[in-house]
């Protein structure tokens, strides 16, 4: 019997994995992808709770999250490309201009 617990824990797991990827990896593109994973985990929670409560608002929110993810990916990749053009690298540790 699959309950909402399963979905919640699964989404927590996905979120944690995404976070781990974002924290551990130094490749900016993988960090971006990990952020997408985190968003997916959140979407999963929304959909699961939507199913549980039998309202569709969660679907709408998931839709918005996707839109935001798309915008984020577009901008993020544009930034990565323009950064790569000047620095020839995509390692996050190579970009430390804002270091204190």
């Amino acid at each position: 019997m699959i309950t909402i617990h399963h979905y919640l824990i699964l989404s927590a797991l996905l979120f944690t994995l995404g976070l781990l990827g974002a924290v551990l990896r130094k490749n900016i593109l993988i960090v971006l992808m990990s952020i997408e994973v985190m968003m997916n985990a959140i979407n999963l929670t929304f959909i699961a709770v939507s199913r549980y409560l039998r309202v569709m608002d969660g679907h709408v929110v998931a839709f918005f999250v996707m839109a935001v993810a798309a915008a984020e990916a577009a901008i993020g990749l544009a930034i990565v490309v323009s950064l790569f053009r000047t620095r020839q690298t995509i390692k996050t540790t190579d970009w430390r201009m804002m270091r204190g």
Partner: protein
Amino acid sequence: MVKFLPLIPLLPLAGFLFNAGLALVATRRKKAPAEWLPSLIGCLAPFLSFVLSVGAFWVLRQNPHEPLITGPLFSWFSTSLLSVDFGFLVDPLSSVMILIVTGVGTLIHIYSIGYMKGDQGFARYFSYLNLFLFFMLLLVMGDNLLVLFVGWEGVGLCSYLLIGFWFTDAEKAAAGFKAFVVNRIGDFGFLIGLFLILFAFLSQSQGSENSYLNYSFMENHKEIFAPLATVITLCLFAGATGKSAQIPLYVWLPDAMAGPTPVSALIHAATMVTAGIYMVARLFFLFEMAPVTLSIIGSIGLATALMAALIGLTQYDIKKVLAYSTVSQLGYMFLALGMGAPVAAIFHLMTHAFFKACLFLGAGSVIHALHDQDIRNMGGLFSKMKYTGITFLVATLAIAGIPPLSGFFSKDEILLMTYVNGSPVFYILSVLTAGLTAFYMFRLFVTTFLGKTRHPHPDHIHESSLVMVYPLKILAFLSIVGGLVGLPHVLGGENRIHHWLGYLKEATEVPHQLELRLMVISTVWCLFMSGLAFYLYCCHPGWTKRLKQKGALIYSFIFNKFKIDELYQAVIIKPLLFISTTLLWKGSDQKIVDGILVHGWTKVATVSARLLSLLQTGVLGHYLLFLWGGLIVFLFLAVR
């Protein structure tokens, strides 16, 4: 009539706004505007106020026991502890005051047109003058102590502005500054008195009504003040000493002569400086409850009168003499108050306003003609400036207490009350002072108008224009007849002012015999002193010089105003400056506040920022890690 009461102060305010606008425009254009407009507006506003005041007086005369009250015009502020409404009150006392203020004020305004002619700040001058009238009327007409205080501060401001009217002259600006600062000291006492009144009410609060500062309310509940009366009245009197130039705060008034002479006449002789007397008279029900205060007031008034008269004997500056004379006369008024005779004080206030304004304006006329203030450069002006001379003589006679001019009646009243209520020493000293007054006034008159012309360019001297002469004439007339309102019963008069203001204090019955005897004594004494002065300065000027040389030590001591200014400088200002500069500024502010608190904290902030900025590694993963850590903490706190 009540409907029009607010107009009395508001008309000068409108005049102020108009003239201030004109002055601003003039400053913008760097060109003096036409003078007819500010003078018209500036004189029309007080004149209309005067007309309204007369109307108010007229209405009040029908039924003197029902003061005209506008009721609260608007609620100024209202809290659970205290509520203050803005309202106007015209009772007999304030009706007398507004008549003096607007009447004398109007005359002085008109006089100013001539006096200030061609001045760069013509419109500015009239705007200040109108503003002064507004605040003075607010002070007099306010129905509670706080409105009075507003007017009190406002006239202080205008006084400052007008003393320093020619602010490009550093000395004059400094005089204004001095007046302001000294007044502040007095105002501090006044404020404490106000707070104490509030404290007295609040500590024994009963009933729902809380407009504590209303005069009528205070009078109806005056028993509340019984325990604090002495302290409160002393504090209030401290304020009065500042405003009305009494010992120890009189030092500003002689310096205030730096302003234009009409200003000295209006503010520093006729109206503003009497605010303290008005305030004490207004709250006389309170002062009555504190006999200690009254005796202190009397002593200080007498001391001031005597000391100022002595200083006045020695001064050469025409305005300075008049200034000390003013201080001396104010001392008389306080003496009257101290002797429990507010009516006499107000009576003297009124007559003093007439003849002192006349004197000042006459002096102004002389100064206008000579462009000089030193009486040693004058003399023999009587023939050249006939009207000025005559009016000046009339006013001198009035102030000297020669019957039947106004000064005689009012001063005699005070001397009588001193004899009746005070000790013999007080009486003797006050009579002595009266003689001194007569002496220095005749010295002034004789030196200025009689004798030989000592001015280097005597041909240029001429009588002033009509706008200046007519106010002089009117004021001289008032100086002559002004005393008739207080013509005592013993001389067959009705003593109207006693009936009019009788509610302030029950008049004491004095045996007619005694009254007559005292009158004769003082009249003879004053005549003798006047004659002496006339004789000494007119016929034998050499004697005075020899006298000076004989008593050079005492003379110079008196000439230097008893070294009071130096004393203040040494005892108060120097230590104060030392404390401010060395201890507070260089020691505590620079070292402790700046050094430790301000810069110390910036050091702390800088160092901690350096340390915190170590967290700012620039590595994306670290930031995410911190974010995550925050999330974990938040979750722990939120979910637990």
